[in-house]
């Protein structure tokens, strides 16, 4: 479903992605983990070309990422993205946030788009907030809107970049529950997160990144209980302390 081959990226002198190969099968849930600055966000953002790459090939559902313009917009419509900072459209109601893409990109009628949007809002548990503005919602609710907004496009794959790290602890669960639900429903997902509970429950595979490289890949069980690289052991030792 998603295939990265020999991907290289530099920010000036900084080699942020070094020879990255990553293949994600349809329905697979991959958790990306690693120290700050290791390139996890960058990796995520290259998959819908919010960041360009310098070398290598990225393909989604067998189609190489288009350069720019309409074709790229078309591809992005098929790749859902959920950001750490939610990025809900601040000037639109929750319902409008969810219907914007279906109406403008998928050319659905307003009535169809709203009906579907309400179903999705129900699914993520915030149907009662449909007519409010983002600032009236808690962070956890906003992030669930972001998930509903992405799902409204019927994406082939969903990317999550630390979706819970800007949230208060009591809101993390409500977002993770939605994500676990999605994973069980067969969605292809690439999730950057340090939530080991999520990784254990929902992930098929954990990818550990360090200094722009994929250092280790394994099942969650194996990775957490028996990491094979020093860097992964070191990293897990640090995050397990708190």
């Amino acid at each position: 479903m998603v295939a990265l081959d020999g991907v290289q990226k530099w920010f000036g002198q900084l080699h942020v992605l070094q020879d990255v190969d990553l293949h994600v099968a349809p329905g697979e849930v991959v958790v990306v983990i690693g120290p700050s600055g290791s390139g996890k966000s960058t990796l995520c953002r290259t998959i819908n070309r919010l960041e360009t790459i310098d070398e290598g090939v990225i393909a989604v559902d067998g189609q190489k990422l288009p350069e720019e313009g309409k074709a790229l917009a078309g591809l992005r419509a098929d790749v859902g993205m959920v950001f750490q900072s939610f990025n809900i459209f601040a000037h639109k109601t929750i319902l409008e946030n969810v219907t914007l893409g279906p109406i403008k990109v998928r050319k659905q009628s307003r009535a169809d788009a709203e009906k579907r949007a309400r179903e999705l809002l129900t699914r993520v548990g915030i149907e009662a907030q449909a007519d409010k503005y983002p600032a009236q919602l808690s962070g956890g609710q906003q992030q669930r809107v972001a998930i509903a907004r992405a799902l409204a496009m019927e994406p082939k794959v969903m990317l999550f970049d630390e979706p819970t790290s800007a949230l208060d602890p009591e809101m993390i669960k409500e977002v993770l529950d939605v994500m676990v639900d999605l994973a069980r429903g067969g969605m292809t997902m690439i999730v950057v997160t340090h939530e080991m509970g999520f990784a254990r429950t929902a992930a098929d595979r954990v990818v550990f990144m360090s200094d722009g490289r994929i250092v280790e890949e394994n099942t969650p069980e194996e990775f957490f209980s028996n990491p094979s690289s020093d860097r992964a052991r070191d990293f897990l030792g640090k995050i397990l302390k708190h």
Partner: protein
Amino acid sequence: MTFLDGNVGLILQGFWLTIQLLVLSGICSIVLGTLLAAARVSPVPLLRGAAVVYVSIFRNTPLLVVFIFVFIAGPRLGLNYPFLVKGVLAMTLYTSAFVAEALRSGINSVPVGQAEAARSIGLTFGQCMREVVMPQALRAVIPPMASVLIAMAKNTSVAAAFGLAEATATMRGLTNNNANERLMIFLVFALGYIVIVELMSFAANRLERRWRVA
């Protein structure tokens, strides 16, 4: 209120000219200012450079100097137009630089994540600007834009010094003929400007409240 006798027509005429100058300069400044702001955030270096030069010239030149150019230097170079046109030209050259800066700061105030989210649901660049970035930029821009336009309204009085028969010029004519009622006349005209400016602030406040990002 004897000074009003026989002068009502003159006063109204002065205000009418002021209003025309104000509205036309306002529209032209917003149009030119928007183009300049777009040029300043555009990816074309030549456009960006030209807009930077324009904005820094006119933002740093006193309005009086712009008027001297348009009303005195211009005609000597064969560029002579009716008073209203020259007034609008001078006001627009000057005000559009401020409009451009206000707009640019508005565009920059929209978090980059908003545009990224818009692009990641598949909106094209144009749709992203139209649906997500510009509506938020315009909201952020109402207070500074209102200040720019209010300053412009008050600046129309500079046109008086150049013989344009707008409100202030009418007032001078009146004060000359009715010297004993000078204070009264000043008050009436000050009131006229205050009413115009208050109306603009009121409209800006209403817009801001209605459009506030909830």
